């Protein structure tokens, strides 16, 4: 184990996989010479050269399309979109092509590719650079969707993503890049997709979250513990495949659930998860499932009002208190 940041854990995963497999390549805007907008690709050009670590034009749709073709040709490209917001320029290649090709061609090909996308709000980057689009990707069949919360998960899930035979949308939270944690040194440390992580065991309520929301849930749980409230936290890790049994089993045990998502509340993934809980646990639920979500507004710039738009440890703690006070 070594202590490192989420950023360095991702960087290590990329380096290990580039060393292991010559068919792995990295490309994106400013990933090579500039070493990435968030420096996740630091040192890659120096170690692996411009044949494998490549800067691209600012052509998001084609960044993805070229990766699709390269994957179809047998390579394992890891494409970076500078932020998830720019993925909207690439939705044609992501949704109409990447997610469809295996199925519409009758299973005759597969696309072993990863699309890395930093995202999330909270840095006063205003409406066009603060979005959380995980529900968009989770909604579409044909691709895996991963969103790690911790440095160890960042490493283990990115390595799995690179080795996975399916296309993977790999989301990274911009506010987690500097977070630190213990990360296994083993170059074969791989975390399976579709296995949620019980970050904390508890008895009174289950908090279902992912990525930065899971970290905020831990902070909330620490505060609530002092009030005598025991929270269990399920970090989903992967949104597709979704590990439904783990959060269902947890809610069956606790009888109460709070679902936390950073994306907009309306038609957000938390609604789907809450519905799954209601369907599977209706007979044992002690209170209706609560949702904590981003406000349904384009993100404002000013930090005085931006913070109102994103779930916080306080809003999660309040939701837990409310769900404990509520009764069917």
């Amino acid at each position, binding site marked *: 184990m070594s202590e490192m940041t989420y950023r360095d854990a991702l960087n290590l995963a990329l380096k290990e996989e580039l060393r292991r497999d010559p068919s792995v*390549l990295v490309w994106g805007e400013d990933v090579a010479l500039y070493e990435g907008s968030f420096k996740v690709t630091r040192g890659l050009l120096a170690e692996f050269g411009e*044949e494998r670590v*490549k800067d*691209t*034009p600012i*052509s998001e*749709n*084609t960044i*993805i*399309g*070229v*990766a*699709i*073709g*390269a*994957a*179809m*040709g*047998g*390579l394992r*490209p890891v494409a970076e979109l500078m932020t998830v917001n720019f993925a909207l320029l690439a939705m*044609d*290649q992501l949704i*109409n*092509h990447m997610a469809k*090709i*295996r*199925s*519409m*061609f*009758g*299973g*005759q*090909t*597969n696309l072993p590719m990863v699309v890395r996308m930093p995202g999330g709000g909270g840095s006063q980057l205003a409406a066009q650079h603060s979005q959380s689009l995980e529900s968009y990707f989770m909604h579409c*069949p*044909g691709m*895996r969707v991963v969103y790690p919360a911790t440095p160890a998960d960042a490493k283990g899930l990115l390595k799995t993503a690179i080795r996975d*035979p*399916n296309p993977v949308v790999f989301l990274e939270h911009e506010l987690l890049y500097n977070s630190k944690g213990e990360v296994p040194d083993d170059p074969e440390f791989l975390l399976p997709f579709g296995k949620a992580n019980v970050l904390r065991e508890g008895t009174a309520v289950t908090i279902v979250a992912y990525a930065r929301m899971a970290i905020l849930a831990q902070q909330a749980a620490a505060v609530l513990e002092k009030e005598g409230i025991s929270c269990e936290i399920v970090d989903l890790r992967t949104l597709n495949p979704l590990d439904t049994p783990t959060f269902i089993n947890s809610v069956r045990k606790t009888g109460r659930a709070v679902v936390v998502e950073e994306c907009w509340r309306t038609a957000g993934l938390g609604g789907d998860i809450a519905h799954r809980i209601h369907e599977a646990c209706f007979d044992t639920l002690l209170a209706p499932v609560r949702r904590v979500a981003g406000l349904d507004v384009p993100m404002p710039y000013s930090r005085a009002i931006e913070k109102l738009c994103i779930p916080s440890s306080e809003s999660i703690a309040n939701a837990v208190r409310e769900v404990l006070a509520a009764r069917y």
Partner: protein
Amino acid sequence: METKLRAILPDHELVKLFEQMVLSREFEESCAEQYTKGHITGFLHLYSGQEAVAVGATAALHKDDYILSAYREHAQAIVRGADPKRVMAELFGKATGLCKGKGGSMHLFSPEINFMGGYAIVGGQLPIACGLAFSAKYRHEDRITACFFGDGAVNQGTFHESLNWARLWELPVLFVCENNFYGIGTEVHRSSALPTLHKRTCGYDIPSEKVDGMDVIAVYKAIKYAAEKVRESGKPQFIEAITYRFRGHSMADPAKYRSAAEHEIWKARDPLPNYAKRLLAEEITTEAELDTIRKRCTAIVEEAVKFAEESPWPEEQEVWEDIYV
């Protein structure tokens, strides 16, 4: 003075070009009939009139070269070597189809013959072609990627992004624009500020040529030359083939935006009878042999329809298959 055919290809290959054009035409006209009978459903875009492009180009490419196309691609796949029976079964939505009935008319795909797909979002295949070309270059394979698209694609962002990218990364791609003058019902001069489409490549430093897409030999020679340039230089080339579709955009389109007079001018340039005349004039074949070929193609297509009709539908559990590995 036109070059004699025998100076370009041996007799049997010259005759084969005719046969492939006839097979393509017969296949498409049979598709139209099967559509009216309700055996083929969904969208159906027919290639009748454009045969010289697919046939001339495919003959000029190597078997290892990748080919990608848009959604008017039945002939591209068949000429490349896809079994007409399995293509027809795909159009019928049957389990024996090239893509198990999951793709349909617009999404033929057959990696065994390096036919890397029909794509139905205009311009969507251009970046993918660049990626395939990159994979070949990265692995030092001796293959180029030929990417076919229509005149409508040149106004998509992917066209400009891909041309820029292919030149920048020096990718072995041959871009082939099949200009049939209409993006559904909108004529090129109503959609493109510069209707001489091949001239657009100057912005990306990619050499380009225009060719008569109604003349299979002209297409063959132009593609052969450009493909060899791509192979030698490792850099992209661009061909604009001027052609015409004899039918509407799809079976749902009566093509009322085109005049009868215009249609007649292009019918007179039909690549099939004109090439047949040339083969006969240069005594490469006989009328009797051409008749035999026509009959053989009719029989192949009839057999394909019979195969498709008799094939089973996909099983219900197939709906969950082939999405993830």
